[in-house]
């Protein structure tokens, strides 16, 4: 088990390999489809982003509303391929990590190799468990998007696994092949 603190450095990213299990602490930002579209639009127009992407991790999540006395509701990962059209642009602008679930496109994997970044998988549907590893949440931008607003989360021992590393490793491919028994 590897302990990591976000934001990440290039050295953090380079030592990670597909299949590594990590416990992540520090700060991550949330964004889903609608927020990604807005971030990329700002980059294309050359306008400033609501937060500095350098070294940061984006968690693909739209949490449930926070019940009284909690920083956030249930907060598991959403399916990542919907962010594939946007992720390479963000990685080229300094994003070092993404957390989601499900396969990424070849373009995203190529961007991870070229710009030294990593894609983590969290367990989809383990949303109540993950909620307990989130210490605080504050809205940073796009409050009008409701569950899709960009939030800054402080996490402690957030469980994830490296799916796509910066060296071309792909746990979904390797894991499936290891256990496939197709006749």
């Amino acid at each position, binding site marked *: 088990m590897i302990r990591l603190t976000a934001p990440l450095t290039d050295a953090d990213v380079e030592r990670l390999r597909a299949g590594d299990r990590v416990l992540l602490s520090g700060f991550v930002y949330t964004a889903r489809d609608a927020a990604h579209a807005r971030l990329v639009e700002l980059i294309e127009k050359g306008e400033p982003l609501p937060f500095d992407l350098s070294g940061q991790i984006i968690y693909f999540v739209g*949490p449930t509303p926070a*019940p009284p006395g909690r920083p956030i*509701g249930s907060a598991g990962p*959403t399916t990542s391929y919907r962010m594939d059209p946007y992720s390479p642009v963000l990685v080229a602008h300094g994003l070092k990590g993404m957390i989601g*679930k*499900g396969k990424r496109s070849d373009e995203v994997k190529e961007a991870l190799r070229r710009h030294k970044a990593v894609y983590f998988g969290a367990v989809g549907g383990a949303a109540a*468990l993950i909620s307990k590893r989130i210490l605080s949440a504050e809205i940073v931008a796009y409050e009008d998007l409701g*569950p899709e607003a960009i939030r800054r989360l402080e996490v402690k021992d957030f469980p994830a696994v490296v799916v796509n590393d910066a060296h071309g490793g792909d746990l979904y491919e390797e894991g499936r092949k290891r256990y496939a028994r197709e006749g």
Partner: protein
Amino acid sequence: MREVHVERITEAVRRLSVEANTRLGDDVVAAFERFREGEQSPTGRDVLAQLLENARIARDEGLPLCQDTGFAVVFVDLGQDVRLVGGDLYEAVNEGVRQGYREGYLRKSIVADPLRRKNTGDNTPAVVHVRLVPGDRVRITFAPKGGGSENMSGIAMLKPADGAEGVKRFVVDRVRQAGPNPCPPTIVGVGIGGTFEIAALLAKRALLRPVGDRNPDPFYADLEEELLAEVNRLGIGPAGLGGTTTSLDVHIEVHPCHIASLPVAVNIQCHSARHKEVEL
């Protein structure tokens, strides 16, 4: 005629929407435990342990099992000797959803229009499937459906000559292509026969059967078991990280069909297989 006030339907839907989203069925929990023992991948066993822990936290603390608290899919089996009074059935269901999703701190995941995509803010409207049945009872099943697994579903209009082999190929192919996306271990609902729309609805209804339940027709019970064994040989595993537990079960529902047709639909259910029902 037995009169049932629609306020009772609102109340039932309100309660079921919170219960379904926070309490995983005993059949699903038992399946996690059973498959964890046989799972060959250590990572896969760890994922199943996380899912058991997640279900425990959700139950004990009243937190939603998954942040995607779903499209509110509501099945109403309406006894033909019941007369609903006090208002519109569909509005009564929507009011239950509105109250349940607000009071239960559940996520509002519905946009009013598929292309202009503005959130309705209260998770309505529900998808309501009403079926007239004999008797004077109203049976309501609440089955919130997440977007991630719904998106991996599919339908094909096969040729009759494709037969059982063609159906098997299509189902296994859907599960293979879905890979890690629909949150495995999944439950695979298969609808065979009927028309285009009936096949899809059969696949959805198949997901309401308990894990481990077999089709009463031995021919389809065998096909369910064959398909389950086959998808679990794909290697996708829990959370798609590799392993021998890709699906917890395959349920098949069938319907008579046209001499020219063999429709087959696959509706994939994530491991957060939530549904609760009540009879009024």
